[in-house]
């Protein structure tokens, strides 16, 4: 895609007016938000909750960016095709993949090893964006803890187990097969 491509829409920042430059408008906006939240807390439907006894509710867990999972295809095999696009997109360089020829007739390449350093990850979701087969997804699991650094380095088996643990609550975002949209990318 070139910079003069018709599909690119270039957006300019709007110029600030006088009140904007004096921070007056935004300041009042902020105070209004605080006041609104005060009122709603007083009414009993608060913004905060008693974590961990009480679990927070998500508006839409499907767009929450928590722990990763590796999705499985219809036959229960890892959906990832080891294209390294997530590792390429990842700004934190925390995805480490070793690709190899797959043992299956209908698929060409698969990850022999797939490791994410969950401590290094910044939960930006770029990997999810980059994946051509929707194999990697960020789940709504947010309270990730571990007793050591090693424990927080998730390998393929662990990432697949996150899939098993979350697939009930969070269905896969797309039904794209490991072949992607093409017919024989496998």
């Amino acid at each position: 895609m070139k910079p003069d491509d018709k599909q690119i829409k270039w957006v300019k920042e709007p110029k600030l007016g006088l009140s904007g430059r004096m921070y007056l408008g935004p300041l009042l906006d902020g105070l209004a938000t605080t006041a609104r939240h005060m009122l709603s807390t007083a009414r009993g439907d608060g913004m905060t909750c008693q974590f961990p006894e009480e679990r927070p509710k998500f508006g839409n867990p499907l767009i929450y960016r928590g722990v990763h999972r590796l999705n499985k295809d219809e036959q229960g095999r890892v959906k990832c095709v080891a294209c390294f696009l997530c590792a390429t997109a990842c700004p934190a360089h925390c995805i480490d993949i070793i690709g190899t020829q797959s043992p299956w007739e209908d698929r060409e390449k698969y990850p022999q090893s797939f490791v994410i350093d969950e401590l290094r990850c910044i939960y930006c979701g770029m990997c999810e964006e980059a994946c051509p087969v929707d194999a990697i997804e960020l789940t709504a699991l947010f309270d990730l803890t571990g007793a050591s650094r090693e424990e927080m380095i998730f390998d393929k088996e662990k990432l697949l187990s996150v899939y098993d643990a979350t697939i009930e609550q969070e269905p896969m975002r797309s039904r794209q097969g490991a072949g992607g949209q093409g017919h024989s990318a496998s």
Partner: protein
Amino acid sequence: MATITVDGQDIQIGDAERLNVIQAADRAGVAIPFYCWHPGLSVVASCRMCLVETGTKNKDTGEITMMPKLVPACQTPAKDGTVVVTNSEKVRANQNFVQEGILLDHPVDCPICDQAGECWLQDYYFNHGHQERRADVRPFTSKRREMGPHVTLFADRCVMCSRCVRFTREVSGGGELQIIDRGSHAEIDIFPGYPLDDKMSGNTNDICPVGALCSTDFLYEQRVWFMEPHDSVCTRCSTGCSVQFHVNNDQLYRIQPRYNPNVNDWWMCDLGRYENGHVRAPERIGSIKQRAADKFTDHLWPEGLKAIHEALAGVAAKSGGAKLAFVLSPYLTCEEAYLLASYARKTAPDTLLVLGKVPVVGQDEKFKSGFTVRAERCPNRRGVEEVIRHFQATIVDWAGLLTKLDAGELAGVYLTANYPDQWTDDAEAAKFERLSLLVVHDILPSALARKAHFIVPGAASVEKDGSYVNHAGLIQTGEWGIRPAEGGHVDGQSFSDLLGRKGLYQASGVLAELAGAVPFFARAADGVPEAGLNLVTGEEKRPRTTALGTVTHPLPTFRSIASEMLEVE
């Protein structure tokens, strides 16, 4: 001088130059897309990607007559008065149609294709592609098949440019590849029972513009955009092909040829390309070791070298310099050989300098295009010889050394090796048994190293800077791509430390010094250009870098397209 007009821009080309329109346009900074043409192969004009409008300009009247139809630029010679139009509607429409036609039954499996990132289809799609795919046809061909030990064919990705077929017929000469079936069922294949297994087979992977032919050894090892190229020289035989080491995270992943008309043109052999297991072999020697009885103990770096220096000086003092020999391996660079020889002569003025073992395997193997894999399997015999000749009137070779050992004429030997394969045996090693000091400087353990009093770790060619002189006297310089095996240092650093020089070893500085000291190397005083310098004839070709880059891939690569996008506001 011939004048050619490309998109309204006049360019001059020399009378003796025989360029086609693609090359002429390249000089003007205009990229005409192409698949089937390759500067090293015959022209078939079959892909139709390069079609342009041409015409002739009347010298006297200045009137331009255009041809009614598009013609292939690869097949049209650039003559005086040729007018080329590459940016008209008609030309663009053709490029789009060709591109769309190829993509119709292409699997578009870029995510798992090894060529992604350096694929011509991808690159051209940016420039000439449609945004939408108007049809999606399942390829009629089979999928994956081995063509030979190093080459895997993904038939569905093939664009039928026939480059690989022409390569085996015109360059390597084996003619193993052919096109079977017709139309959209056509695919590349070998004749049953005759695999593509000659020593040049790996080149087909390079010239395939798409991911149809992939290197089996490199398959799925690494995505290309993670790797960094480092220009260097192949050290597997005395031809000394110009190569590029592709490395990432201190690992050597791939070796590819680099265009050099003085040596290898666009090619290299499979030996140099694939035989590099020694680089990260688990048994690599990593530290200075000293032997007491049968046990080796590790030394820290400065103390170890100091102990070796004292031992060498001790032998020279006790038995006399003439009984101390320094063996200069033909795997050393010129700079290293010079430093080690200087050190030898500093230890005692009459030490013996010996040219290390020159491995010879079979006969020179010459291919149809003239490309030769030499029997002499080392990169720098000539360079080391010239260095020795500077210090010593005669050259003592390996056989000469063994004779001297048998006659008991030597007391101490500092032996450099760095051979990528096993190069010696117990019988040979036994001859060194009587020495009071044997220092072996090598990358892999050997029968000889087990007998050594000291072992010094060496560096593989991908780990060091330095120059090599090939069989024809052409000196070429390589740069390091990865660091030496854990604990090791580059050879030049060890020798420079032994010499008592302070600071980091800089190959370029030593080369300038060498050029000043030894007349044979005088031409290299200001460094060595990309395509090398012939120190014997004093003449060599200088490939021109055109406005669009090299002649092999005149397109911006994946990386440069990306950075181009970043630069625009």
